[in-house]
């Protein structure tokens, strides 16, 4: 693997010439900067059905509430849950994640989510991205605020990257953040146009466009060096087709290039399974289809990172859960608490965290949904503090202090 120092000497500075290299890059080239810690957030838009993702097969009520769409308790078939701890089981389509769990690297938190009661996708996503449930006026996102304070000369233009054609709310805010849809195409294709466009966007009095424009061209210069080397995932990792896999592969590429990435965001939609969530067998239907892709993508990312997983923590989330009862269409409607995954870094995996509230009628939230026992900010705050090393949690999650750490990472 190319080290940071070697990479910068051989490609980065060679392209610009030392005189024109951005200040932070010239500084970084002295090799004194350590590898960065990276936090990767994955958003499952549409509200994934956590009760069928990490299945409480030890709870009889689960089967009573879901006569036709429950995932069967573990048995020797590919159509049943994969046992985790005698009570919870993984959906069979998530088999690629089981080895990571068994190696005590993948942690699961159940009955977790946003305390806000909204069942609107739009509002709930907004709250989870801003990190301030119930408050709509928050302009930026928690992951932007989670960036540790940076010393000016070393601020990389790609500290914060949102994969996809737009900059997600989670990463908007005071700190510089860029959206990258496709790493290889992140440039002005006609090289004669690059200089005048850069000049226009850095000198315009249109503040909104000049800010983004300057960030863009700083990032473009950095990407040139990465684009020069074709990428092959390590360790035989095979990313599945689709947006999530491609996004995670590009995040891995940025991480390994040591260009200063600290936080990344990507998302995958389609989880709003009101109808045909489960097909004729548990391994069929919409949810299984999406989970297969989801599990393969995360597992490939883990494989590809190899020993760099020490530096990288991944966390997944979705705006709310779904009704504990199935609806009339082999699906579920909008609910409340859900499930989150976290792996990498010093995360203590091999365990399902969180108090289980039960699924008896009197235990359900508003007599219909899984109750919430862990605030999603408790999970995120622990990663921000212990993995990224940013202890200013009141700044990251205003009006929510102090968060209750669940011990996902050792003290």
């Amino acid at each position, binding site marked *: 693997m190319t080290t940071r120092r070697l990479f910068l000497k051989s490609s980065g500075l060679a392209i610009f010439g030392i005189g024109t290299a951005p200040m932070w890059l010239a500084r970084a080239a002295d090799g004194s900067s350590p590898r960065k810690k990276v936090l990767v957030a994955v958003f499952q838009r549409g509200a994934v059905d956590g009760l069928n993702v990490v299945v409480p097969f030890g709870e009889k009520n689960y089967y009573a509430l879901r006569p036709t769409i429950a995932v069967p308790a573990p048995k020797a078939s590919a159509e049943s849950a994969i046992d985790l701890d005698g009570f919870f089981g993984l959906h069979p389509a998530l088999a690629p994640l089981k080895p990571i769990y068994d190696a005590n690297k993948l942690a699961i938190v159940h009955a977790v989510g946003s305390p806000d009661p909204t069942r609107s996708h739009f509002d709930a996503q907004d709250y989870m991205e801003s990190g301030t449930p119930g408050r709509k006026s928050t302009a930026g996102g928690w992951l932007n605020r989670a960036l540790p304070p940076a010393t000016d000369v070393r601020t990389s233009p790609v500290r914060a990257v949102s994969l996809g054609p737009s900059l997600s709310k989670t990463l908007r805010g005071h700190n510089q953040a860029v959206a990258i849809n496709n790493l290889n195409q992140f440039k002005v294709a006609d090289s004669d146009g690059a200089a005048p*466009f850069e000049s226009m966007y850095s000198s315009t009095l249109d503040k909104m466009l000049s800010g983004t424009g300057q960030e863009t061209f700083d990032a473009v210069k950095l990407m040139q060096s990465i684009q020069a080397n074709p990428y092959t995932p390590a360790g035989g990792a095979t990313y599945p087709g689709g947006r999530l896999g491609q996004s995670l592969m590009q995040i891995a590429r940025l991480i390994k290039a040591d260009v200063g990435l600290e936080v990344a965001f990507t998302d995958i939609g389609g989880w709003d399974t009101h109808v045909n969530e489960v097909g004729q067998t548990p391994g069929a239907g919409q949810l299984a289809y999406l989970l297969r892709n989801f599990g393969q993508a995360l597992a490939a990312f883990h494989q590809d990172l190899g020993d760099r997983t020490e530096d990288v923590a991944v966390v997944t989330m979705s705006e709310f859960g779904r009704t504990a009862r199935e609806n009339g269409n082999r699906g579920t409607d*909008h609910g409340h608490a859900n499930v989150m995954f976290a792996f990498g870094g010093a995360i203590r995996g091999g365990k399902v965290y969180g108090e289980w509230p039960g699924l008896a009628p009197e235990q359900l939230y508003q007599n219909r949904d899984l109750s919430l026992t862990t605030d999603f900010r408790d999970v995120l705050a622990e990663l921000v503090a212990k993995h990224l090393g940013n202890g200013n949690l009141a700044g990251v999650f205003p009006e929510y202090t102090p968060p209750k750490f669940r011990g996902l990472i050792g003290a």
Partner: protein
Amino acid sequence: MLCLGARSPKLSRDEQVLHALNRLTFGPRPGDVEAVRKIGVKKWIDLQLHPERIAKNPELAQRLAPLESLRLSQADTVRTYPNPQMIRAIAAGRQPMPEDPVTRAAVERAIQRFKVKKDATDNRALEPVVPLDQLLTREQIRTLRTGSVEQKRAVIAAIPERQMDNVAIALPPGLRMQLLPAVEPALRRKLMLLTAPQQLVAFDLSEGKLYRAILSNRQLEEQLVDFWYNHFNVFLDKGADRYLVPTYEREAIRPHVLGKFRDLLEATAQSPAMLFFLDNWESVGPDTSPRRGNAQRPARGLNENYARELMELHTLGVDGGYTQEDVTEVARCFTGWTIRPPRQGGDFFYNDRMHDKGKKTVLGVKIPAGGGRDDAEKVLDILSRHPATARFISKKLAQRFVADDPPPKLIDKMAKTFRDKDGDIREVMKTMLTSDEFFSQASYRAKVKTPFEMIVSAVRATGAQVDFAFPLARQIADLGQPLYRKLEPTGYSDANSEWINSAALLARMNFALSLAQNKIPGSRVDTSRFGGNLADVARQLLFTNAQPETLAAIERQPRQTPGSANAPVVGLLLGSPDFQRR
């Protein structure tokens, strides 16, 4: 927002003209500013509010003519552009083979592929009826693969008409797709039909939307079709919606964009596209009789999806004062609003056996037991006339046409008109477009163009000739706004922050350079039409003076080959910060 120092809060006459054009149209074309100045801004706005008084553009009619699926009924769409289920039904003899020779060839080949997939031992290659090398010379085939657009056109023109269908059938799929920009619309459709019959509907929708935005003289009407489709968004790629969306836009949205909100709301509520997209067609009351002869099927029940989005997104807004209880009650009222199977036309119908007959309470209004289809009509009455709806719709219109954060006073005025005029959209639009807030310095150039607006406005400003619009749709998707493909029922955001980010800015710059250099297949810009010095060229494209910083950046660019100097300059101006605002 632009910070150009202290300025008077009112717009100059020239600014008013440009502002009105920027907001009511998809960007000015050469000559538009002069035309509006001549009629007068107020009169021109009034004309745009009455599209039936504006003559149609004959070129638009000519471009739309080949896009047949936009005019077909739902049932005919499925028959003409068979999907995999239909092809299986034809293979099993449950449906007749199509009569049109090219459609028949498409279906036959799909059946063969289907059989090959199913039975691996029967893996005969798909031999065309007449092989390509018996129809064309090797030289001709080579030209079709690697020649210029003009050379390809010449080869196609030399093929006798009676042979053309055979050639189309014999071409390999990859080559067919490559030829699309080089051929006439009729042949283009045959090539697409042979390769992916189902995709033709999506193709027609994108092309139709682009041609209308580029060419229609009734620009405000097209802006509003875009606005209301987005407000009542339906995702094209959800199952049956691939066939239902053309009818939805044509019959539920387009006729009502300047009509009564209640009519528009009902048209969407009864549209098969919406009933399917938000699952209401499957929502069944709890104590209704089971389906006859289908004992194996599990009992179906209530589905809240449509009821929730109806209140949150279509009418009251998320803060409109409804509860989870109201969502469930509205869902109960809408049970029985369903659709017929696709092969029976897939039309809306009310099925009394699915309806929940109990009494309901919606936003405090009691709906007595024993009702039927009218329960949902009562809900539409309550919602369409609720004050929260008047405000929610007014604010959303103002965010699109005025500014991201429109003045509350303006929203008050619009909401009052909405209530006083029983949800007359034309009247609400008129209140907005004649207000001081609309013609204010705070609103002038305050909106960033969406990807769709950016690309269409570039085509219009350059007077580009578009013979094949589909490649432009691909560009719009690259900029982050795939047409008819917003998965969430929210539709696309109109906020500036949604569209300005690194990936999107680079994509805009790349598109601008490609368009000016005629690298977008199907679109041609004649950059020699722009004359004078750099500042003059900029004025011809921006319809106002460019920022000095923009001109300075282009001046510094070393001139390349003399003669072709205009194209890069035009590209740089279209990709400039100045062109990203409207």
